[in-house]
């Protein structure tokens, strides 16, 4: 499956967090790499959305929609820092 990037889930994340999230700084719990959510690897083809670290490819976020409920697992992140929106 071809990897896209975090830009692809900007709308979904907006729905979950209520704000622009592609510029949020994500820190991988696996290798410690840090960068904007927009630069993470994103796989859309499965039953849910899988977000992986671009450096070590660990799973950092999983999003699954169950009927009308969006479930988000950020367990692979060690930090998610929200930027000041301008």
């Amino acid at each position: 499956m071809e990897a896209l990037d975090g830009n692809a889930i900007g709308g979904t994340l907006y729905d979950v967090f209520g704000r622009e999230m592609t510029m949020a700084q994500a820190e991988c719990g696996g290798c410690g790499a840090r960068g904007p959510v927009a630069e993470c690897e994103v796989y859309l083809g499965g039953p849910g959305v899988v977000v992986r670290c671009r450096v070590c490819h660990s799973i950092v976020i999983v999003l699954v929609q169950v009927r009308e409920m969006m479930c988000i697992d950020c367990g692979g992140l060690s930090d998610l820092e929200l930027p000041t929106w301008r």
Partner: protein
Amino acid sequence: MRTLELEIPDWPGHVAGQHVDVRLTAEDGYRAERAYSLASAPGEPAVITVERLENGEVSPYLTQNVRPGDAFEIRGPIGGYFVWRPDDGGPLFLAAGGSRIAPMRAILRHRRNSMSEVKARLLYSSRTLEDVIYREELEGEEVFHTLTRAQPPGWTGYSRRVDVDLLREVAWPPEHGPLAFVCGPTSFVESVAAGLVEIGYPPGRIKTERFGATGGR
């Protein structure tokens, strides 16, 4: 290929490079959603350009069925990473693959409308000349075309996939402090971004946006 002007209630305005998600819901409740970059500059009506994809779930409707006045669901504007504002500066090196020229058009129009003095170059990779979108409008810009599948007689542009040598010839040298935007299918984005790093662009000055080769996103 079709360009649609969207009239969106309570539209807050957008930033060059942002996209909207178009969501279609079938009578049985099945939903399909695709992202389309806005091709217009901030302050202009929201415009998307849609390429019809075989077996697509959203693009056949948007390119063939939708009529002026029809309504569909839009979410956006989306994105804060792959965006450019005049005070972000440059010089700008824009690289687009296929129909993903839309955000680059938004950036170039915004630069022009705001009378920005930031210099910009566009590298635009298409399969054939017929696949080049906004061709006439782009003639006023510093644009380098490469046609990867077929070239018309007398073609003087590039005729191969983007490689490091091509980037060395057309991209601003890294010592000019350029800011790069790369948008296209994943394979295109990966090779252009890697090539820019190889010729000396700092990774932090390269913004990337990947779309699936089938438009699936």
